Every structure is written in C-alpha cells, then in structure tokens.
C-alpha cells in the first residue's frame, strides 16, 4: 500500500530535476558537443573510451646500412617508399602504431664485436617510446604486407595454440636440442614469436611482447664475452646469438614460440633457392600468405624487380572498383 505512492513520488522528483536544471543540462550538452566537434578523439579520451596509444606498434627498419659509405640509388629509395606506404596503409586500417627506425651505419656499431647490435638497441628504444603498447612487430625494410585485411589479432594472436611450435619438434633445420632441462613451457606464455627459414632463425619479421622478460632478453642478448669468441662464426650476428641462447639457456627457450615461416614471413623463390621444391618457405598468393619478405635480396638478387613483382600481385589482389577514385 505504501509502495505505490512512493515510487510515483520518485518519478515526479526526477521530472522536476530536469525541469529545474534545464539550463545547466543544456550548457553541459553544448560544451560536450563543442569538444566533440573540435576534437572528437579528445572527447573519447576524456570519457576513457579511446586512447591514441596503440596496443600494437609496427617497427619498420629503414635506410639499413645507409650513411657515408655510398650513395643510395634511386631504386633503393623507391623500395623504401613503397615499403613504408604499404605499412602505413595497413596500420591506418587496423589502428596500429607505426614507427620507422633509421638504421644507418654508425661508428658505435662498427667494432667487430658490436656490429649486429643495432636491432636490439632499436627495440629497446622503441619499447621506451611506447610504454603502453602490448606487442611490437618488427619488420625489415624489404617486406610487403600482402593481405592488408588480416589483423594480427585474427591472423596470429587468436590462433597461437594452433600455430606455434615451442620445442622445435616439428621443424628444426639447425638440429637444436628439442628437450632441455628446466624449460617450463606450461607456466610460461610466449613473449617472442619468430620464424625459421632453411638456415635457422629468421628475425626479419618478429613479434615481441612488451614485457619484463623481453626487456631482460634485450639486455642479455648481446654479451661481449660470448660474442668475442664467436664473431667470426656468427655471420648473422644477433640471429646466431639468439640461436645459441635458445639452445643453452632455458629461461629464454621457455618464452619463445616459432610460427611457420609463411604466416608472417614468406619468402620469394630467390631466397632459400636450394629448397625450391619445399612449399613451407615460399609465398603463395592462392593461400593468401600474409607477408612476403625479400630476405637477402641485396646479396646478388634484384631487390627492385622482386619488389615490383609483389607490388603488382598486391595491386591485383586488392583492387576495388573505387580504388581509382582515391588512388589507393
């Protein structure tokens, strides 16, 4: 009996609230609308819906080996321009961050013990730059994203259980040990995703999680005592160093996962050419391979030619009726 009038009264009072504060509500609404008008993302940020700090950041190496030793050819500039454009479009589409890192020849890396160390330093620097990012995707300059509609979440991160090999039991070109003491895979998630080609680890396209483990790895990766002994043998520098760390140090092994080469790092026929009959390495347009990496095209192959070829495949695949209108 008491309930009914009370609820009615409540209703009445809320009505009177609007009636009383009409003006204030109008002003607040106007201010909010103005903020939205001037800076829509600013409003979203204030409301905590949107943050302009991306969760995934692509690190694109550029001007590798550039500097004082020689002039860059026009073709090299063109390759770089295409590569950057390709990643920029991809990042815009998916809301990822993109940072382009110059890697010219520098004096501090010219000592024979230190020559491969730029990549680690760039990664460390980028992690400081984007402290709130979750993952970083390192891409070498001579790469093209061939399927811009694939997001990393749907293509890689949601399928980790199916894709990732952690013990090298499935593909092991270097014949590294597949079982080592103390490696605890079950209690550790993967923090570094890399691929292997015919010659072992390939760091041309890697996914790095922003974590304490990664920071420690970047700190431990280069060590003068180890590098001094091996710098004549380790042709691929930081790549070989990581192989050695993986084989001998379980705290590193337990956090690394291997993706099949073609998920994020497919090769053109020129690379790994001794294995041309093995479909595990090479880009296949029909299978919609995600990324093509013209790895090693500087060594006796035609980078510009390969770039053009894959660019034309890319355009064929991604042409839409409205593409011409927007010059996409």
């Amino acid at each position, binding site marked *: 009996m008491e309930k009914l009038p009370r609820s009615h009264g409540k209703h009445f009072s809320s009505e009177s609230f609007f009636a009383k504060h009409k003006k204030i509500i109008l002003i607040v609404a106007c201010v909010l609308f103005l903020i939205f008008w001037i800076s829509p993302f600013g409003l979203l940020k204030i409301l905590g819906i949107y943050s302009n700090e991306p969760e995934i950041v692509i690190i694109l190496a550029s001007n590798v080996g550039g500097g004082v030793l020689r002039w860059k050819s026009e073709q090299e500039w063109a390759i770089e321009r295409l590569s950057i454009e390709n990643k920029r479009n991809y990042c815009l589409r998916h809301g990822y961050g993109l940072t382009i890192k110059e890697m010219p020849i520098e004096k501090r890396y010219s000592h024979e013990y230190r020559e491969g160390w730029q990549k680690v330093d760039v990664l460390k620097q980028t992690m400081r730059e984007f402290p709130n990012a979750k993952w970083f995707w390192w891409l070498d300059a001579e790469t093209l994203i061939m399927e811009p509609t694939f997001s990393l979440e749907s293509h890689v991160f949601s399928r980790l259980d199916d894709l990732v090999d952690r013990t090298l039991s499935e593909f092991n070109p270097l014949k590294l040990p597949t079982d080592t*003491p103390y490696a605890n895979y079950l209690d550790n998630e993967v923090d570094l995703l890399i691929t292997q080609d015919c010659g072992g680890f390939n760091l041309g396209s890697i996914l790095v999680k922003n974590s304490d483990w990664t920071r420690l790895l970047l700190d431990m990766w280069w060590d003068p005592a*180890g590098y001094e002994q091996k710098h004549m043998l380790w042709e691929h520098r930081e790549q070989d160093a990581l192989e050695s760390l993986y084989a001998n140090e379980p705290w590193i092994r337990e956090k690394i996962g291997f993706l099949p080469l073609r998920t994020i790092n497919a090769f053109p026929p020129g690379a790994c050419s001794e294995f041309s009959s093995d479909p595990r390495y090479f880009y296949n347009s029909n299978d919609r391979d995600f990324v093509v990496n013209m790895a090693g095209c500087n060594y006796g192959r035609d980078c510009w030619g390969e770039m053009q070829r894959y660019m034309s495949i890319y355009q064929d695949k991604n042409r839409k009726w409205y593409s011409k209108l927007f010059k996409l």
Partner: protein
Amino acid sequence: MEPKKSVSLKRRWKKFVHRWETQVTKMNKTQKFKYALPAGVFVLLILVFILTGAFPFKNTFTSRSLPPVHGLYQYDLKSSSPLIFPPIEHQPTLKKMGYKNLFLRASENSDYFVKTTNKPLTDKERKQMMNEENSKSTYAKTLFLDHGKTVYRKNTQPEVVIVTMIDYENFHLDTTVQIVQNRIDYAQKHHYGTYIRWAQEFIPFVEKQSLEESYEYMKPLMMRAAMNAFPKAKYFWFVDKNSLIMKLDLSLQSQLLDPKVLESNVLKGVQIDSNSVIKTHLSFDPKATIIIPQQQEISDVITLSLDFNSFIMANDMYSHSFLDYLSDPLIRNYKWNSFSQCVSHVLQWHPILLRKTMLINPKTIASVYDQVSNVFEKTSGKEKTTANQYEENNMLIEFKGCVETKSCGPLISKFYRQINRT
C-alpha cells in the same frame, strides 16, 4: 510484514502454475506440438552449447601437448620430506669407486656422461638391492645417480631452502656428517628445507671435468637444480661446505630478509669489485632477488670481491636468467681469471640484472674466520686481513681458503662443538 509477503508470493506462484497446467491440459495435440517444438529446439541449443564448451573439438585435434618441465634428469623421485640429502655413509664407497665406475664414457680419454633418461629405482627395488650382500657398491652408485632426481612437490613448501654441495673426495666422512647435520639442525628449527648433493654429481654436466677447475661453476647448476626441486620455495640460501651456521636460533628472515634489515645492509653506490667501473644502485630496490655479500680485504690497498660461499636467490625469472647465463657453456668456458670475475662481468654488462642484485654487508651471512686467511697468506709473505672477521654471535662462519690449505676438517669440528644445538 515479511512472512505475509512470502505467503502471498507463494500463492501467486501456485495460481500461475495452476493456470498454466490447465491451459496445457486443455490443448489439443497440434497445439501441444506447436508449444513443445520451440521449447525443444531451445533446450537442444543449450545442450549443444554446453557440450561444445565442455569438449572443445578444435583443441583435441590441433592443440599441441607441451612437455612438462624436468630437471637435468628426465624423471623425478618425489621426496616426502623437505630435508633432501644423500646417504652420507656411502662416502668411502663412492671415493673408492671414482668417476670411472660412477659415470659412463665412450673411451678412456673422452668425457664422462650419465644417462639422463634412466628411471629412478622404486622403493621396492631399493630394498631388494640393499639386502643383497655383494652389491654394496652398485647400491651406492645407484643411489648416487638417483639422488639428483629427488624433488619436493608437496603443496606447502618451505620459505627458505638451504643449499649445500658436499665433497666425498677432499673431506673426511666425519666432517661431511657435521656439515650436513649443521644444515639439517638449522632447517628443522625454522621449518626450512635442505637441498644437499654431492658436488661430484655435476661432473658429467660440465666440460672441465674436475672439482678443482669446475667447482665454482657447479654452484649455479646446483642452485638451478634446487629451484627445480622446490618450485614454490621463496628463497634459496647457498651455504658452501667450508662454512657453518653458528646461530641456529636466528631465522634468515629476521637476520637478513626482513626489508628493514636488508635495506640497512645493502651496499649502495659501491664498485662491484675492485676492477669494476660500474657501481651498484644508489637506491634500495626491495624487489631485488639476488643477494650477494661483498668482501673487503685490506692489505696495501682495499680489495673488493664477490663472495660465493654464501649467497641468496629468490626463485624468479631474474635468478633463472642469472644462473642460466653462468651455466651457458659459452660463458662457463671463457678464459676468466676467477668465477667472481665472471659474475662481476655479468653485472657490469647487464644493467637489468645489476638492478635485481643486492650487494650486502658480509657480516650478515658471510663473516670470515680470519685465522685461515692468515695461515693462507703467510705462505705468500704478505699480511692481509679481512674486514669482516667472524665474531661471536655472527650467524655464519666461513673458513675461507680451508680447502686449499686442507684445514677444513679440524676447523669445522672445532667450531661445530661450539654451536648451541638445543
């Protein structure tokens, strides 16, 4: 008011059910069917949802099974007690057998190895073997090789584990007994665990296969094995065989690990060792997990060195990284002057590990018995004193250099008798 309300609710509910029942009974067959069909479909959908949730088809086919973690050996031997130590009475037998009989090797000059995939003996097999008269040495050998497989997997794990390597070649049986008893007495008082193993067990796992060359590099191997044996213990205190815990009633927490005590004993902004240009952090990081005493020796100049006769580590990523690095063959076999130089190198080149390391005042867990160093130094003719000599009421006494001067036995038994064991 309350009971009345519930009664009225019940009545209403009854009314509702009754009306529903009469409606259903009034229906003819086709009406009933129309009613039951959507209900059936709904129930079916829910069933499918629950079943697919409980048995994800995708995973059973594609997900890889990851191998479980294991130590240096493939198989575990679960211990029922947190006090893990080898049968010490086998010391003379083991000494007699030598590496040749304990380990395998391909030929006379090649390296020793062990089969890490062998299963440990079951209790039954063990008892059987013990009763056989002629197999005394086989029995000792089997237990020696199985001892490294021992792990403690109970849910309540000790807070601290005392880690010690004992040596059947250079120590007398009596001395070994006193060392092990000392650790066990201390651990029992505070409900800690012990992890004691023969140093010789690690011979097949290093490249330079003798204790003289590799003993120091066995310490990281030993610590890593201890962490595998007690995966949830918090701290691991390595106490070397040339040391005795003198104050059994003082817990490690109260003596050192309490953050306040720790902070007052951390050496801030000091050189890592005498040859280091890098200094430790000026601030105290309570999250640091590697605790190493720094010794000072004063002769003409002050010499700083890291002391690995007594140090502490927590069981975390940073310790694992530190230990794995020291056990990496590339690092282990580098031409270091000393193990201490090797560790100092790690700390100087890897700032994150340095941040996670505390150098501490050695008075806390590493006071040195000076007579030994005097005896030791007399041979070289120089006078040298250690800044942190053992005094009564210190927690630990370290007979530095006693292995080299072969004086550990008498010193340990002399001080062992002074310990208040009640």
